[in-house]
């Protein structure tokens, strides 16, 4: 059993990852997995399982807020969850069969990609008119039951469609998701990456929904976050039955992540987002380099 000091350090790592992840708009998993492997010297499998517990916890904590906002489209989420849960299960099974070094190499590659995305990202609030083409094309046929200004957003019975009032544009935006096979294909990959590496996979799903399916970016981001819990639960169940979850490591990390992400919502908008993103992407590159060095050393030692 870990000492009290180790448990406190694990909770602090979770707190930091949860807070930083929420402030710069990424899931805590991509920060947690390298921290657990490099600082706490867990195996990559235990790190991924721990991160999945934290991902389910944050997604569940944030889920209520996304549901309350009405922006998450639950029918669209459920449809894509068929693909993400299959991907999550396949990713979990694959991860259980691959060697720790292969998992570390895949993690290093993911860290480099995330660092690149973070350093080129702009502020999270969408530019006016984003995904406007798709929304405007069907705006004329907006139903009479579309929400009035400042009324809660809605989704439509029996369809992958909905509407919300966009304060920045001052109008009701009605959307209808198109090309769902494309969204499902990307969601399958996102689920597999999530199950193998313990991350949420939003960096794949949000662009697929916004650019590929014509869903407004705000709805895409809320729907993706709403989906993460079920996807991670699908792969977490595999780690659980295989005994790869270390409860006394996972619990303090999960408790820390939930506290950190909830605390971060209080300071959102008051932190220098650009500087934080650049610092985080630098830290991710250092972690990727450390993982690569460990792989080279372990190969040389054979």
């Amino acid at each position, binding site marked *: *059993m870990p000492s*009290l000091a180790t*448990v406190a350090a694990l909770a602090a790592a979770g707190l930091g990852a949860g807070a930083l992840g929420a402030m710069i708009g990424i899931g805590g998993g991509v920060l947690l997995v390298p921290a657990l492997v490099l600082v706490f010297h867990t195996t990559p499998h235990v790190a991924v399982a721990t991160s999945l*517990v934290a991902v*389910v*916890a944050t*997604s*569940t*904590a944030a*889920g*209520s807020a996304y*549901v*309350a906002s*009405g922006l998450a489209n*639950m*029918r669209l989420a*459920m*449809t894509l*969850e*068929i693909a993400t*849960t*299959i991907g*999550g*299960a396949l990713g*979990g*099974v694959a991860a*259980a069969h691959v060697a720790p070094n292969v998992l570390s190499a895949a993690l290093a590659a993911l860290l480099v990609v995330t660092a690149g995305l973070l350093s080129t990202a702009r502020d999270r609030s969408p530019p006016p008119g984003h995904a406007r083409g798709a929304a405007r094309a069907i705006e004329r046929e907006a*139903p*009479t*039951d579309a929400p009035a200004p400042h009324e809660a957003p*809605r*989704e*439509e*019975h*029996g369809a992958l469609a909905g509407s919300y009032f966009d304060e920045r544009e001052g109008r009701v935006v009605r959307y209808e998701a198109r090309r769902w096979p494309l969204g499902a294909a990307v969601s399958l990959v996102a689920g597999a990456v999530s199950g193998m590496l313990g991350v949420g996979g939003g960096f794949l799903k949000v662009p697929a929904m916004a650019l590929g399916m014509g869903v407004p970016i705000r709805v895409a981001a809320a729907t993706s976050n709403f989906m993460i*819990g*079920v996807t*991670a*639960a*699908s*792969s*977490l*169940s*595999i*780690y*659980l*039955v*295989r005994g790869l*979850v270390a*409860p*006394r490591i*996972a*619990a*303090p990390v*999960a*408790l820390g992540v*939930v506290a950190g992400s909830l605390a971060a919502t209080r300071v959102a908008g008051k932190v220098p987002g650009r500087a934080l993103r650049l610092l985080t992407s630098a830290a991710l590159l250092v972690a990727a380099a450390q993982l690569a060095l460990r792989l080279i050393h372990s190969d040389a030692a054979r």
Partner: protein
Amino acid sequence: MPPDESKSVEDRGRRVVQRVLSTGLAVSVAAMAAGMAASFATGSDAAGELVLAGIVILAATPVLRVVSLLVIWSRARDWRFAIVALAVVAIVSSAAILGRG
């Protein structure tokens, strides 16, 4: 379905999902925290089991959210999405069985 009825189904669905998520999270966090505290106080195996139970409850919470929507959409005769929800429950349940292999 008339717009008013559709809106009421959606509002009910959102309320139920919110309640399921917040209750599941609260119970799992309480179990994990109590289990961790008991681990240090007593070092018993039962405390470790409580921590694990908290993690299992946490993993089950998003699945319960899917089951809730399955019931709500079935009652509203939104069959297309009720079947989609049923498929998700079946996939997540079989993932655990697949994992044993």
